[in-house]
């Protein structure tokens, strides 16, 4: 789980979570800003990718601009003892980008969440129906986003926390 990063590592996190410079040697540039060599930065990034500290290292595209016009949050009422198995089935679907188990709450009797991406809302419904058949679970809801109020990347180790 969590661990204490040195102040230099925190500085590196702050830079890597922003845009990588579009220059011939971007890691050397980042290193210069935090007092490391380019090779040291590369080694640290590789270490963080290998141990999962960096989940993803690459370009984040705007899905809607690239043809995925619909996304639906599917929420499922899965018996606790089947959650692991069902979660794995959902995770294997290419249309599912995120899948988590979460606690139930007052007025919210769903415990497995899967984000579905497709070209149209109809396709999202079809994907969800297919998943329902695969796992034999009928209790689910499909929540479409009607408005995006905010979408940013988290910035760690910055002042306001």
């Amino acid at each position, binding site marked *: *789980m969590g*661990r*204490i990063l040195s102040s230099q590592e925190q500085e590196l996190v702050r830079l*890597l*979570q*922003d*845009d*990588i410079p*579009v220059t*011939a*040697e971007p*890691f*050397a540039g980042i290193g210069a800003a935090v007092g490391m060599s*380019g*090779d040291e930065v*590369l080694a640290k990034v590789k270490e963080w*990718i290998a141990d*999962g*500290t*960096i*989940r*993803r*290292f*690459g*370009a*984040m*595209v*705007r899905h809607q*601009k*690239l043809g995925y016009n619909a996304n639906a949050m599917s929420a499922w009422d899965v018996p606790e003892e089947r959650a*692991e198995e069902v*979660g794995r089935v*959902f995770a294997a679907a*290419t249309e*599912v*980008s*995120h*899948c*988590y188990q*979460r606690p139930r*709450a*007052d007025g*919210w009797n769903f415990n497995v969440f899967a984000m579905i991406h497709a*070209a149209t809302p109809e396709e999202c419904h079809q994907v969800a129906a297919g998943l329902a058949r695969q796992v034999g679970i009928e209790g689910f*809801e499909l*929540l479409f*986003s*009607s*408005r*995006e*109020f*905010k*979408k*940013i*990347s*988290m*910035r*760690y180790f910055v002042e*306001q*926390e």
Partner: protein
Amino acid sequence: MDATEKKIVTLIQAGFPVTAHPYAAIGAQIGIGEDEVIDRIKGIKESGEIRRMGASFDSRKLGYASTLCAVHVPPEKLDQAVEVINSYLNVTHNYERNHHYNVWFTLIAPNRERIREILAEMEEQAGIGPILDLPATRLFKIQVDLPVING
């Protein structure tokens, strides 16, 4: 985007090369030079197709706590509630969804205590609640690299 730009986007979405000359490495894979890759990526970024090109950290590995929150907000309170919720840099995604719980947002903070504190502040300031606090207990899949289907 033309065919070359789509190839570049697919490559750098899947994984930015962790090497001294990453743009040369990308160019080598699709048969163009480092300078052209750099020019193309600058162009793609200007067009807004790429939101950001960098690292996504696992909040837990950095010692942070995260959660998914849902709250019912009546229409007359919606604008103010969204303003209050979005005012926190800890809120990374916030959507209106078609459900009784119509506002869904993600929250990341240094610890669980801070999360509870922020949710209490939001309930108080926006006059909404209770806000459901649904931290993940198991992760089955996080993010996938969707292929470019319709650039």
